[in-house]
C-alpha cells in the first residue's frame, strides 16, 4: 500500500504545535487562532429552535440553505459586493473547504502553480498540495509593513501559474493590503489571466487607528476595508472566501462561504458536492442567525481584541532586545521577529544541540523559529507558532495569538519574560 499523493503533505505546524502542547501540563497556548469567546447566545438560541423544529438534521441543498444564501447576499450587498444567492454563493465547511474546493476546480496538469505570499496562512501550501498543485512563495517586504513585492511576484508568475491565494488582512502579520496594492495585484493577474483567491476571514477585526481609504464610505467600525470582489469587472477572476469562525466565534461549527461569478461557482460546486455534499445544516442555521442578529457581538469582540492587542504589544515593548514587531492593525495575531535566541546550547560544551526535547520525545532540529518555539514550550510551557510555518520569510519570527483571554495573555507573556530573564 502506498500514499503517493499524501506522503508529501504535512500536518500544519500550528496543529503540530497544539499536539505537542497538549502533552504538557500547565501549558498556556497562544498558538492556534481560536477566539476565547463563546458563540453568541442569540446564535445558539436560533440553533436550538431549529433543532426543536426538526429541520437541522437533514442535508441542505448542495449550495446551502436558500435562507442562508439570501442573508449572505444581503450582507455582501451592504459591503458593496453584488452576487446572486442562487448561483454565485456556496455555503462551505469553513473557509478551508471553500479554498480547497476552489483549488481542486482550477488546478490542472498544465496549470498547477499557486502563488502564496510568505508569510501567510500555514494551511495554504497543504491545501494547494491536496489539490494536486505546487505552492510557490513570493516574499512580502517586512520593512515596508509586510507589503507585496511586485517585482518578485511578477517573476514568479509563469505559464504554469493558475492562481494567487492570499489572506487579507494577513495571517500571521495582522496587516492589511492597501487598495492601491490590491489594484496593482488585480492588474497583474488580469494581464496574466490567473485567478485571485482572497480569504478575508479577519476583515471585521480592524482596529481604530487603521484608515485604509478616506474617500469612500466607511464601514461599521468607522473604517473602510476594500475587497477586489467589490469590482464587477473582476468577478470572473476573483473567488472570495469568508468564514463565520473568527468573526462570530464559531470555529467549531465549521461554516463559511465562497462567492464568485456564476461561471466559476458552477464548477466549484461540483467539487464541493463530491467533498462534503453540503455544509452542516445545523451550522447553516447558526450562520443565518449570526448574519441577522449578531452585529452587536462583533463590535464587542473587536473592541476586546483591540485591548488585548495593546496588552500583548505592551509586553513585547518590555522586551526590545528580544523582539522587534509591527503593531498589527487587524486580525488577532502579532508576528514578532526574534532578535535573541538562547536555545539548545549545551552548557558544558557550549555547542548547539541538534534536536529539541519535548517531554520524552526528541524532535529533529527544523529551524530557528521552530527551535525557539519548542524550547519555549519545553521550558516555560508557552505554546506559540514558529514563523517558518507561514512560509520561508516567516522564519526568525513567532506568531502570538491575542484571541486568547487577557488572563492567558498575561500569564504567557510573563513566562516569556521569565524565560529571557533566567
Amino acid at each position, binding site marked *: 500500500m502506498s500514499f503517493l499523493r499524501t506522503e508529501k503533505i504535512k500536518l500544519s505546524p500550528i496543529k503540530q504545535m497544539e499536539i505537542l502542547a497538549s502533552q504538557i501540563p500547565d501549558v498556556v497556548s497562544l498558538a492556534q487562532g481560536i477566539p476565547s469567546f463563546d458563540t453568541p*447566545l*442569540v446564535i445558539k*438560541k436560533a440553533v436550538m429552535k431549529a433543532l426543536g*423544529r*426538526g*429541520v437541522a438534521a437533514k442535508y441542505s441543498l448542495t449550495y446551502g*440553505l*436558500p*435562507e442562508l444564501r*439570501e442573508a449572505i*447576499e*444581503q450582507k455582501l*450587498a451592504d459591503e458593496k459586493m*453584488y*452576487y*446572486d*444567492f*442562487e*448561483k*454565485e454563493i456556496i455555503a462551505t465547511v469553513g473557509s478551508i473547504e471553500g479554498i480547497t474546493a476552489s483549488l481542486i476546480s482550477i488546478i490542472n496538469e498544465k496549470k498547477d502553480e499557486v502563488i502564496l505570499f510568505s508569510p501567510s496562512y500555514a494551511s495554504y501550501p497543504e491545501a494547494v498540495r491536496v489539490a494536486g498543485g505546487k505552492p510557490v512563495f513570493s516574499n512580502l517586504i517586512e520593512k515596508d509593513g509586510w507589503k507585496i513585492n511586485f517585482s518578485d511576484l511578477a517573476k514568479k508568475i509563469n505559464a504554469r501559474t493558475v492562481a494567487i491565494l492570499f489572506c487579507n488582512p494577513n495571517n500571521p502579520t495582522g496587516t492589511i493590503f492597501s487598495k492601491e496594492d490590491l489594484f496593482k495585484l488585480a492588474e497583474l493577474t488580469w494581464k496574466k489571466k490567473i485567478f485571485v483567491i482572497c480569504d478575508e476571514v479577519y476583515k471585521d477585526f480592524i482596529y481604530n487607528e487603521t484608515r485604509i481609504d478616506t474617500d469612500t464610505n466607511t464601514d461599521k467600525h468607522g473604517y473602510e476595508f476594500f475587497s477586489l470582489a467589490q469590482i*464587477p*469587472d473582476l*468577478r470572473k477572476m476573483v473567488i472570495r472566501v469568508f468564514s463565520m469562525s473568527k468573526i462570530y466565534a464559531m470555529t467549531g461549527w465549521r461554516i463559511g462561504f465562497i462567492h464568485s461569478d*456564476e461561471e466559476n461557482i458552477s464548477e466549484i460546486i461540483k467539487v464541493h458536492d463530491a467533498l462534503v455534499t453540503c455544509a452542516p445544516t445545523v451550522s447553516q442555521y447558526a450562520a443565518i442567525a449570526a448574519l*441577522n*442578529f449578531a452585529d*452587536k457581538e462583533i463590535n464587542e469582540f473587536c473592541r476586546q481584541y483591540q485591548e488585548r492587542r495593546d496588552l500583548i504589544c505592551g509586553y513585547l515593548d518590555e522586551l526590545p532586545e528580544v523582539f522587534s514587531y509591527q503593531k498589527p492593525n487587524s486580525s488577532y495575531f502579532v508576528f514578532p521577529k526574534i532578535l535573541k535566541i538562547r536555545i539548545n546550547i549545551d552548557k558544558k560544551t557550549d555547542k548547539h544541540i541538534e534536536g529539541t526535547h519535548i517531554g520524552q520525545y526528541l524532535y529533529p532540529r527544523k529551524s530557528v523559529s521552530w527551535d525557539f518555539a519548542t524550547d519555549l514550550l519545553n521550558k516555560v510551557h508557552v505554546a506559540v507558532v514558529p514563523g517558518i510555518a507561514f512560509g520561508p520569510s516567516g522564519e526568525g519570527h513567532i506568531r502570538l495569538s491575542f484571541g486568547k483571554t487577557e488572563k492567558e495573555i498575561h500569564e504567557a507573556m510573563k513566562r516569556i519574560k521569565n524565560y529571557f530573564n533566567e
Partner: protein
Amino acid sequence: MNKFIVKICLKWCAKIYIWRIKPHAIFVAGTVGRYWAKESVVEALKEKNFPVRASKKNFNAEIGLPLSILGLPSGEGSFISWLKIICNAFNKAFKSKAPMTKEFLVLEAAIDRPDGMKYLLSIIKPKTVILTGITMIYAENFENLDEIALEYKILLKKMPWNGLAILNFDDERIKNLAESSDRRIISYGFSKDVDFSIERSQKVSDGQKLEIKINHLAKKVQVKIGRFGRHHVYASTVKEIIKENFKISTIDFFKQIRD
C-alpha cells in the same frame, strides 16, 4: 421578559397606531426575494416623493412586524431593553401624529407555520400586496408548497375592496391565486400575457440589463441594475409597477413642500 406579553403588547400598540395614523400598508410576501422586492418598493416610492417607512432586515414576523409598524428596534435578549421598547410602543401608539401626507409602510410578511398569515393580518390589513414567489424554502412547518399558497390566498382575501395585488405570474401557484381573487391585480413575469412583461434580461459585466413591456400602455422601459440574479430582475419590475401606479397628487406635493 415573557415573549407572550411582549407579543400581545406590541400587537395592540401596533393596532392602535394603525387605527390612529391610517398608513398605506404594503405587504411584500412570498418565500423568496422579499427583501429585494421591499427595497425596490421603497426606492420607487421615495423617487415619487412619498413619505415611506419600511421594515428593517428580518423584522417580518409576529414580533418583528409590529416593531416595524411602530418603528422600534428589537430588545434582543435584554429584559430592560424590552421594557423600554414596550413603553415606547405605548408612546408611539397614543402620541404619534399623523403626517400631512399619507405615510407608506412597506412591510415584509414572513410566515413559518400554518395560520401565521392570520396572525399578521390580525395586526394589519395591507392595501397593497406583492407576492414574489413560493419555493421550497421556509417550508419546514408546512406539509407542502400548496399549504403555503393557502396562506397567501387568505392574504389576498383579506385585502380591502380597493386593494391592489401585484403578483408574479411566473409562479404557477401565485398565478392560480389570482383566479380566486376579485381584487385589482397587476401581473408581472417573463411571459407575454402579463401586465408588466420582462421581455429581455441580459447579464452584463457590472449587472443586468432588462426591458419591461407595460402592456396596457404599449410602452417599454429599459432598466439597468448593478445586481445579479433573477430575483433582482423581478424586484426591478416591481419597482416599475409601483412607479407607474403610485403617483403623488399635485395637492399632496405642495403640501409636502409646505411641511
